[in-house]
């Protein structure tokens, strides 16, 4: 639906999420009923279309140590060894459900349920860019330094966006992601 509505005159922004797409439109150009008709029309025309062939993107990760200060906490919470946490995290196939909340932030589905760990009770003021994180049952990567409450288990040196690219973010809705451990995990 997002792909179908991008670029329509009068539609300012599309905000896809897990089960919804928010359509932000210019009320000077379109009315609610015009937008509703447009959405229904696009849905009818494209609902049976196959999604484009997904891209698979490998994201190298240095787990633990200064790069993943919460790795020991995740191991403790899940009752797994640090090695097993890394093995499970890097063994899974993730799907970018959507990119949202903050600039270029990919919401990844596919975290092995054993790794689910609650967010920090008080968010960090500064999460370094490239941090690979777990927030509840969700996985994600911080593409920019920002505040954040997810558990940091590693960091990737891979740049997650390039403002000169069209579009800038590396990870986009529908992409598949695999994490590849690099270097020695330091605990």
């Amino acid at each position, binding site marked *: 639906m997002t792909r179908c509505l991008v670029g329509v005159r009068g539609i300012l922004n599309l905000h896809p999420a897990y089960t919804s797409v928010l359509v*932000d439109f210019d009320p000077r150009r379109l009315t609610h009923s015009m937008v509703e008709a447009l959405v229904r029309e696009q849905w009818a025309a494209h609902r049976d279309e196959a999604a484009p062939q997904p891209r698979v993107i490998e994201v190298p990760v240095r787990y633990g140590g200064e790069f993943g200060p919460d790795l020991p906490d995740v191991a403790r919470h899940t009752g797994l060894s640090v090695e097993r946490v890394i093995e499970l995290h890097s063994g899974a196939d993730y799907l970018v459900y959507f990119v949202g909340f903050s600039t270029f932030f990919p919401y990844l589905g596919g975290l092995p349920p054993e790794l689910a760990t609650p967010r920090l009770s008080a968010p960090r003021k500064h999460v370094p860019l490239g941090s690979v994180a777990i927030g509840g049952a969700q996985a994600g990567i911080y593409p920019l330094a*920002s505040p954040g409450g997810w558990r940091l288990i590693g960091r990737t040196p891979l740049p997650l966006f390039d403002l000169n690219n069209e579009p800038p973010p590396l990870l986009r809705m529908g992409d598949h992601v695999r994490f590849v451990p690099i270097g020695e995990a330091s605990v």
Partner: protein
Amino acid sequence: MSGLRVISPGFLTTVQDLGRFGWAHFGVSASGAADALALRAGNLLVGNAENAAALEMTLLGGAFEFDADTVIALTGSDFGAGLPTWSAVDIKAGQTVRCGATQSGARCYLAVRGGIAAPQSMGSASVHVMTGVGGRALRKGDALEIGNEAVRLPRRPAPGAPEFVRSGLRNGMLRVTAGPQAAWFQDELYTGAWVVSEESNRMGIRLRGPAIPSPSGHMITEGVPLGAIQVPPDGQPIVLFVEHQTTGGYPKPANVISADFWRLGQLRPRDDVQFEQVTMEDAIELLRDQEQWLYSLV
């Protein structure tokens, strides 16, 4: 090419246009002028297209030296520059425009005939302060080029903010329409008196007041627009502002109407705020009236 030099930047001065639209599905909110009405009016007064880039000053204005004759307009709140506001003003080469502390709301705009020729990122020159997309806040000594994108002659109406802006700056009653989770709430949002917190910024305007009971029910993260009022578990509402997150998981009892977006940009810490619900039809009518006024400047 002519330009201006930053003698002093003020508290927080950035280059803003109307924002970068069409990127929310990559997590990028529009950013853009906090008081888009003032930015658009300033641009129309100097003869620019309404979305030309201009300077947005916050609470305490800066001083800017111009190296060539030009025409400017100061709109939004009066920052005590000693020049007519809300009208085109001639500036001589070598002249410095010195703004001071605000005498009304939070933001003042300095539009320059031809526009500020700042580099664009994703189709907009707007600085997204929190991420640095589009650049950074101005510093002492920065030099900005002035473009030559003017499209018509400057306009010189009688100086001063129009009456509806003056009353909007005095009055903290913000108009809203029902939000997607309105049914989860009683009328606490409308009966409460709210104060703008010092922690407010371009991402969100945080309000303090009587805690609104955190409604039961499980939210699935969904898209959130400019002006959405979300209520986190602590019961203190946050109005999502121009650099807002693109998705959120807190319930939203209401959304500020488009015709009042500009007033969000003029709220200062410790200002009093109340909410009044209007219908969608009223909201659209109010926006239409405001647009009609704006285009009377052309």
